[in-house]
């Protein structure tokens, strides 16, 4: 399956990590020097236990995975799907992936 179509930020991070041959959460964390993103944070995100992702963590993870952050935020390959990010205000209701990217 194309990782760009995965639903949920955790599945996208995991799919991209595997696609880019980064074998474990640990290996990904090792690509991010400093304590902003640790192995347990990566595990937590991939397990879906963490809805509260800091902007710095998103940027660090995207950089380490060598993808543009939008690939993590939305399932770009399913443009007509609804957004699947937690905690958005109701003004995002009905916004589709393609509108979000624009």
């Amino acid at each position, binding site marked *: 399956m194309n990782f760009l179509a995965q639903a949920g930020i955790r599945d996208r991070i995991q799919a991209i990590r595997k696609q880019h041959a980064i074998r474990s959460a640990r290996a990904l964390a090792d690509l991010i020097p*400093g304590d902003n993103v640790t192995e347990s944070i990566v595990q937590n995100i991939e397990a879906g236990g963490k809805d509260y992702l800091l902007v*710095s963590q998103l940027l660090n993870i995207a950089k380490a995975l*060598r993808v*543009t952050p*939008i*690939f993590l935020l939305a399932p770009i390959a399913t443009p007509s799907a609804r957004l699947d990010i937690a905690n958005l205000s*109701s003004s995002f209701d009905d916004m589709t992936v393609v509108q979000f990217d624009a």
Partner: protein
Amino acid sequence: MTGFVRQSGIGERIQAIRKRHGIRSAKDLADLMPGGNVTEAILQNLEAGRKEDLSVSQLLNISHALRVPPVFLLAPIGRPHDSLDLVNLSNTFEGMTVAEFDAWISGETNGTYRWRDLTERTERSQLEATRQLIASLRERHRLTTNMAIEAELTPPGEVSTDPAIWDTTQERLAEANRRIEQLSSYLTDAGWDLEGWVK
């Protein structure tokens, strides 16, 4: 006064944009995010520089309420050669300028930011293709409307059979359709799900 696109620090940029857009207080801005996770206190802390990192959903809620692209909050777009001023970034971001950051964020294929390998380029090309597809779909919509108007305005019997000097609407519409066809098959082959979107 310098434009809000030049302010350093995410809090300063939020404040400058808020004021520029005539939103008088942090409370007023918070009120624009119903059901969101950004309170007046959080905004005050951000604007005062007491809180420097925020969650992804907070960033999206704030930029949506301010009606600016998130990248305007993340970096001083008006100073492309400056270094980034975000906190907690890993040192792999060291030396990245605002212009490179913007290119990276938007996934430009030929931007300031150099992509390292083929996979990266492919992923970005697909993103680029979707954006072109969106533009072509819009173009098709516009041309279809034009065709209808032209047909209404041309009295029957006055349809010219001479070759036109410029591309006719019909030709441009056909071109848009070819482009849509091409881009959709490229993306569908790459595993994209265009169901319910490209009609």
